[in-house]
């Protein structure tokens, strides 16, 4: 794979804030901002509409309904959802389910992603092929045999482990880790090897400190799957006190919502509740997407 880094002139990157635009580019900068704004509006409008819809006392599906009218706003829909499903317990279940998956993916995924990218060992090619295969195969093909295996062979019905197991290590995250480690200059590792460091030492002191952007990406990416997943947790758990929020909401949508005062609003309220933690997590993490000190790892 080609790399565009000139070896000899590798220096720590400059502070991004110090990069200034040449003056004639000022107009282009405004153009860029306008395009971004239009795009952002197009992207966020449906979500905004969802938010407004969830706050409406009476469903207003006309075009004018997009503008929130003070007389028609209330938190009633949220109250209804809270009364219908135990938001606290289901949120906790969602968190346990998601945390289990994220933990498994991060801990074991980094190890295997690093190994696939930078280490040479027998079976590496096969493992990579299997990893690709696991992502390509659609879940609907596997769902009933998987259910039989988890519930019958492993006896994990109605348990958090049963929910977590099929998602325990997200293969796409492994792919991302691998791709990320492939981008790290091999010289960093070879330099450490020449210095006599053991492979584990290299993993701990060289590879892991570098992995932060990939780690954040992987967490954000792995989080969404189990957080929004409905069918699998539903199949595995019938006890209400173990069901995650996505399942409880789907049940609510399919039944009780119809008899609510504003069924569509109640559904939107539920969806907003489901989306809120994911958005919050993103807001917290995206700050870290700044240049890393990659250059400082290479001496001379």
């Amino acid at each position, binding site marked *: 794979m080609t790399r565009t880094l000139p070896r000899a002139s590798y220096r720590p990157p400059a502070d991004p804030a110090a990069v200034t635009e040449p003056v004639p580019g000022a107009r282009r900068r405004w153009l860029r901002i306008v395009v971004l704004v239009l795009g952002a509006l197009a992207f966020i409008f449906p979500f905004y509409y969802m938010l407004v819809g969830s706050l409406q006392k009476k469903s207003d599906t006309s075009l004018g309904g997009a503008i929130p009218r003070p007389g028609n706003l209330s938190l009633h829909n949220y109250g209804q959802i809270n009364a219908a499903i135990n938001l606290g317990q289901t949120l906790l279940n969602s968190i346990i389910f998601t945390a289990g998956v994220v933990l498994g993916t991060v801990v074991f995924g980094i190890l295997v992603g690093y190994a696939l990218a930078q280490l040479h060992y027998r079976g590496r090619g096969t493992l990579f092929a*299997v990893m690709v295969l696991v992502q390509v195969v659609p879940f609907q093909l596997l769902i009933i045999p998987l259910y039989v295996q988890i519930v019958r062979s492993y006896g994990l019905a109605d348990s958090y482990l049963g929910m977590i197991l099929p998602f325990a290590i997200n293969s796409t995250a492994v792919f991302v880790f691998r791709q990320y480690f492939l981008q790290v200059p091999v010289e960093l590792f070879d330099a450490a090897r020449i210095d006599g460091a053991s492979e584990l030492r290299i993993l701990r002191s060289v590879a892991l400190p570098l992995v932060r952007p990939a780690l954040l990406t992987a967490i954000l990416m792995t989080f969404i799957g189990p957080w929004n997943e409905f069918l699998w947790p539903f199949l595995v758990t*019938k006890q209400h006190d173990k069901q995650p929020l996505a399942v409880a909401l789907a049940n609510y949508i399919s039944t009780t919502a119809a008899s609510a005062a504003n069924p569509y609003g109640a559904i939107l309220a539920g969806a907003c509740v489901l989306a809120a933690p994911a958005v919050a997590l993103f807001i917290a993490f995206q700050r870290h997407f700044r240049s890393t000190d990659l250059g400082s790892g290479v001496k001379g």
Partner: protein
Amino acid sequence: MKSRTLPSIATVFLLAATTTAACGDGGNSPAADTAAKAHGPINIWYSNNAQEVAWGKQMVAAWNTAHPTETVSAQEIPAGQTSEAVIAASITAGNAPCLIYNTSPAAVPNFQAQGGLVALDDFADGANYVNARSGSTAGQYKSPDGKFYQLPWKSNPVMIFYNKTEFAKAGISTTAPPLGTYAQFLDTAKKVVSSGAAKYAIYPSPSSQFFQPWFDFYPMYAAESGGKQLVENKKATFDSDAGKAVTGFWQQLYAQNLAGKEAYNGDSFADGTAAMASVGPWAIAAYKGKVDWGVVSVPTQTGGASEQAPTFSDAKNVAIYTACKNRGTAWDFLKFSTSAEQDGKLLEMTGQMPLRQGLEQQYAAYFTANPQYKVFAVKTAHVVEVPNIPQSVEVWQAFRDSWSKSVIFAKEDPNKALSDAATKINGLVK
């Protein structure tokens, strides 16, 4: 790496496949005769519809108080499409409950083929109980081998609900709206849409899932054909004058944009977008406070549709599943939950019609207090069920696909589509 990928993948496939073939099934269902007499705690599932849950809870509590050694524990599963997938998966895994109060008659042939259902005839009074409770309607629920693998539990006879407010706005009578013949129905539909009272006259879901014909084609076909099922004696029956009449009628509705062709988010009748709906009494709870509704029988070509005209039953039944160990208790509990007393409670709490003969006489007090439900009670004795045949889901899917193409999207002549579907279905059921 890339050059090794394909052979590696092939090896993985082969290895996994051969290992699986070597593995057996493992596990057994309890022997039928011993299980039929066994008594002990059992597990049941019912739908998570709010009213049914309320009914279910009081029923289970009543039983548990009277039978402390044979306690029943209950869980809810959604009543929607996913429930079939859930039940099929649990049959395969061997952890299905003893009773499921949400078994769709269309899914029974598949569950039976999986070996997941217990024949009620295995119990000494099985067949007698079913026949005594449901009368002549029970016959439709027998499987091809002559046994009952389901107990006909409750029905939601499909009728035409209309929005009185919107009809009044369009200048149509709200006490005796002209909806008896196809011609009258079309006229009324045109009037209500052109007057601006509603966007659509009627708005059954246009999606292509296999069960959608149960709410547009099938109720009217039942009425028009005098009570025929879609398939009888291994032959499709709908490639007939009755079938063509119903299809022609709906084609008119769609062609004149009186019925919506796009997926609608929510309930179009409750929202007032559609002036009519083709649905059963379970929906009444959802319309309370939103729509001032009236109800009539589905139309037929020449009219004269009386209260006794057939319609689709939209029944949900109860079945005993083979994973059940204490089948004696399961059967006793089943009889308890469908006793006259519990059927009465079901009627009061959910407004759905137990599939019990002589409903109006048995619960005369209820129908006097709630006269708007009486018409459904009368219909319950004249419901038509989906045919109990193997491949039933595939048959309905084939029908829906051809309906979608010809009636909703007008890409094919409906009569030709009908006969093509009949040929295809005859091939599936022979």
